[in-house]
């Protein structure tokens, strides 16, 4: 399909503020026109009436597990799962084996992605060698190789002196330092949110304070160093409030929230399902509502899934032993559409948090339907009901708290560079 028209959908393009029923014309992989009743001429026509047409989603927090843990996921399966969820661009964390702390690993990931992944893949490099929190990585070389951000993610840099130097040095390359904000001394052996649920379950608690303390530290470091600090997966009202105040003061802080922290509370853990175990943990109702409000008012810039595949046998152990994290790509849209259904967010704003805003954080030219932009497009039916079965999904893993549940909102087509890479009827079409 060198020329095609998506006909009669509700086109939402946050970058331009456009929200209306229109045709969208693609030519040679680029957005060529948006308007009412575009002439068909020689283009193929796909009827998408009653569906929404948006930029393909952008996920800046994912774990693709390759190299090293391909039994959980690889770049091919992760990329396929991404486009099945409407994502056209994903950034992958550095906690592979070996760690992505060297340009050779960055090169490898990009090579693999070009061959195997239907979604665009951007590596996030480690901030310190081996994620050890001691020696900073070669940021200049890594950015030249294609790294779009630096992060030690779950191996939070606890040494404040090291964190300061990493942030100072990152100004040289002008990419964000992404922070998994949890003070490990406060987390201790905690596996669920500390509060009435941890007390009822008798599982070790992880207090919201662990996040708040660390966000506070890193906002102060951002102010001191002028670095762009991005707070990953905000889960507490306290963190939302600190980010809000910091931005009012002009500090370069951005933030993301996951679908699960927007939709689930620690009550989901009451059955001891290890697919409700993640870091940071699911919090209480007030924290979840603060995250929703923070996303709605723009304090939290974007939604990121923290897609974290783990094999069935790894999750099928006792709650303390089970690894953190859940799948994210294929359930993200229906889960976050709830914010539109409840009218907490306008459709255009929710789409912005999935597209333009995360693209801006990693300074990539995706997440827009501007004329001439690469035709990365998601088409979805916001009202379509379906039952999610991770065994039938595209990830190699199945660790999802939404397994077997009915969800509302389904991606029908995903395009990358104008190429149809996912069709809900036909599945993922080879990269």
């Amino acid at each position, binding site marked *: 399909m060198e020329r095609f028209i998506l006909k009669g959908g509700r086109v939402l393009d946050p970058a331009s503020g456009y929200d209306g029923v229109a045709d969208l014309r693609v030519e040679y992989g680029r957005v060529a026109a948006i308007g009412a009743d575009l002439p068909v001429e020689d283009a193929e026509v796909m009827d998408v009436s009653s569906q929404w047409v948006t930029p393909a989603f952008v996920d800046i927090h994912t774990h693709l597990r390759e190299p090293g843990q391909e039994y959980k996921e690889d770049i091919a399966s992760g990329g396929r799962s991404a486009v099945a969820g409407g994502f056209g661009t994903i950034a992958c964390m550095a906690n592979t084996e070996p760690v992505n702390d060297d340009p050779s690993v960055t090169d490898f990931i990009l090579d693999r992605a070009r061959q195997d992944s239907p979604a665009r893949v951007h590596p996030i490099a480690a901030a310190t060698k081996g994620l050890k929190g001691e020696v900073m990585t070669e940021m200049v070389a890594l950015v030249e190789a294609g790294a779009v951000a630096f992060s030690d993610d779950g191996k939070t840099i606890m040494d404040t002196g090291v964190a300061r130097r990493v942030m100072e040095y990152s100004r040289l390359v002008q990419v964000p330092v992404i922070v998994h904000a949890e003070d490990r001394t406060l987390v201790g052996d905690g596996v669920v949110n500390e509060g009435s649920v941890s*007390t009822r379950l*008798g*599982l070790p608690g992880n207090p919201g304070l662990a996040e708040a303390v660390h966000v506070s530290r890193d906002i102060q470091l951002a102010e001191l160093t002028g670095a762009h600090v991005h707070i990953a997966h905000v889960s507490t009202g306290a963190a939302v409030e600190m980010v809000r105040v910091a931005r009012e003061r002009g500090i370069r802080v951005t933030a993301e929230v996951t679908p699960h922290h927007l939709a689930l509370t620690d009550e989901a853990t009451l059955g*001891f399902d290890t697919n409700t175990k993640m870091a940071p943990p699911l919090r209480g109702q007030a924290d979840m509502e603060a995250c929703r409000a923070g996303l709605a008012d723009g304090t939290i810039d974007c939604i990121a899934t923290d897609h974290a595949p783990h094999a069935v046998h790894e999750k099928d*152990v*006792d*709650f*303390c032993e089970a690894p953190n994290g859940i799948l994210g790509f294929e359930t993200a849209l229906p889960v976050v559409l709830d914010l539109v259904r409840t009218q907490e967010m306008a459709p255009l704003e929710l789409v912005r948090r999935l597209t333009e805003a995360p693209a801006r954080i990693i300074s990539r030219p995706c997440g827009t339907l501007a004329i001439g932009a690469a035709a990365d497009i998601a088409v979805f039916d916001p009202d379509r009901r379906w039952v999610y079965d991770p065994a039938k999904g595209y990830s190699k893993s199945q660790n999802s708290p939404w397994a077997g549940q009915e969800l509302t909102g389904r991606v029908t087509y995903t395009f990358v560079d104008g190429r149809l890479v996912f069709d809900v009827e036909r599945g993922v079409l080879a990269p």
Partner: protein
Amino acid sequence: MIGRDLLCIDDLTREEIGTILETAEHMREVAARDVKKVPTLRGRTIVNLFFEASTRTATSFEIAGKRLSADVVNFSTRSSSLSKAESILDTARTIDAMDPDAVVVRHNVAGVPKRIADVLEVPVINAGDGAHAHPTQALLDLFTVQKEKGRIDGLTVAIVGDIAHSRVARSNIAGFQKMGAEVRVAAPPTMIPAGVEALGVKAYPSVREALDGVDVVMMLRIQLERFAGALFPSIREYSATFGLDREKLRYARDDAIVMHPGPVNRGVELSHDLADRRPSVILDQVRNGVALRMAVLYLFSGRPPGQSALDGNSGGD
């Protein structure tokens, strides 16, 4: 209750707890006989699955099963390949292959018995999971108090010690409240779990205050290896402030009894003389534990109701 799981006290109604305690009373009579055995569960298999070393509870369940003539199979971390991170599904399948009539599970992490019960068809009895629940301990404590005081309704119970890490505390709080008692807890603030109000108890920072006028004082075992120096500065300071001796006990009612799930750290939670003598009822708890567990095994895995627990002939096989 037949065929159901017993995972925590919330699984039971007040009436069902009453039935269990009555049945335990009958079971005690068996223990008083010359031949301490009835054929009630003959031909039945009970699997004791202990992921955590616990001689007391394991032995108590084993004796209970044997007095009911069940075949008791013991699996522990030492005698089998069960490792910390073994797949729960694999474990359950292994156990299922033995075709048991009930499975008794103990694990050092909360939730494992529940996860095994989710997979297995047969009744799963929780013999203690992490800091979550220990329902048979709570039931035997209720049984002991019932025998001592003639009632539970209207009593006041103080639980003293590491509430945060105690499954005994959680199950006893739930059990005594369900049977109409008031429960208070006392511990250093480092041993009171977050949001303890969710359990419906008031937390006291002083033993003397907590004991004021109570009928039952329940002392918890302190895990010295894990927490000395972390949650309290020293054993000496702990025993001086939260250990029970006759001086502190004077704040309770004159006829108050002292309980402890055992094993006692002598001179830490309890002074030596209190560990051995009235008003402590620690040995009665152990004895009642066997009768109570016989009742639980009988009621959850045994014959349908209407047939006597003690009459082997009508119990049949």
